[in-house]
């Protein structure tokens, strides 16, 4: 079942430098008084392959990233029976174990919550203009997404 009217789904999107709060997005989603909430957080991983990461930093084309996240959220609200959607991405330095992105979906039933949240993070990684720079413990740093274009 999908919403005939996507305006029924309140959407919150943001790009921010401040740490992301899972508690804040939980409260936004719980206010929907639905039955299910799915949240996905992308966090800074310590070890990738053989390399140890000290921190990540993110840069966004901010005005466009906000529009693009809203477009994705509206698309999800059309495809699934959603009640509320939130997408927030952090910029600047994100230390190990902290969240760079939080995606959340409130729904009546659990299936659509999982499906819409998965859709949103998958699409965010393809189309939202944000770039990740990995700073390794050995002092080197590299922009991600660039490897295959060199």
């Amino acid at each position, binding site marked *: 079942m999908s919403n005939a009217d996507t305006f029924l789904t309140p959407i919150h999107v943001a790009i921010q430098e401040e740490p992301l709060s899972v508690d804040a997005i939980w409260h936004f989603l719980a206010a929907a008084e639905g039955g299910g909430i799915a949240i996905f957080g992308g966090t800074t991983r310590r070890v990738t392959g053989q390399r140890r990461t000290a921190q990540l930093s993110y840069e966004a084309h901010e005005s466009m990233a906000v529009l693009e996240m809203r477009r994705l959220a509206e698309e999800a609200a059309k495809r699934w029976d959603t009640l509320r959607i939130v997408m927030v991405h952090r910029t600047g330095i994100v230390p190990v174990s902290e969240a760079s992105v939080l995606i959340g979906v409130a729904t009546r039933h659990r299936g659509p919550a999982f499906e819409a949240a998965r859709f949103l993070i998958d699409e965010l990684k393809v189309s*939202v203009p944000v770039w990740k720079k990995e700073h390794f413990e050995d002092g080197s740093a590299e922009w991600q997404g660039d490897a295959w274009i060199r």
Partner: protein
Amino acid sequence: MTVTIHVFASLREQLGRSSWTETLPDGTDTEALLRHLALQSPEIAILQDVIRIALNDRWVSTATSLSQGDEVALLTPVSGG
């Protein structure tokens, strides 16, 4: 006409600036702009095939005519999340 160019992340670092203006003949489209910029900048030239363009905060996938005051972003493959 004059448009503003924006670059980010690795391309911003390589070019040493995040935005600048370009004065172009009327009727220039996004593809012609990219070819023009690639001729001026080896950093852009080497990335010409992978750069995607956003016009006024929206992706454009085909050659699109530019207008006075447009904001054009040259975007390398994104890696957020």
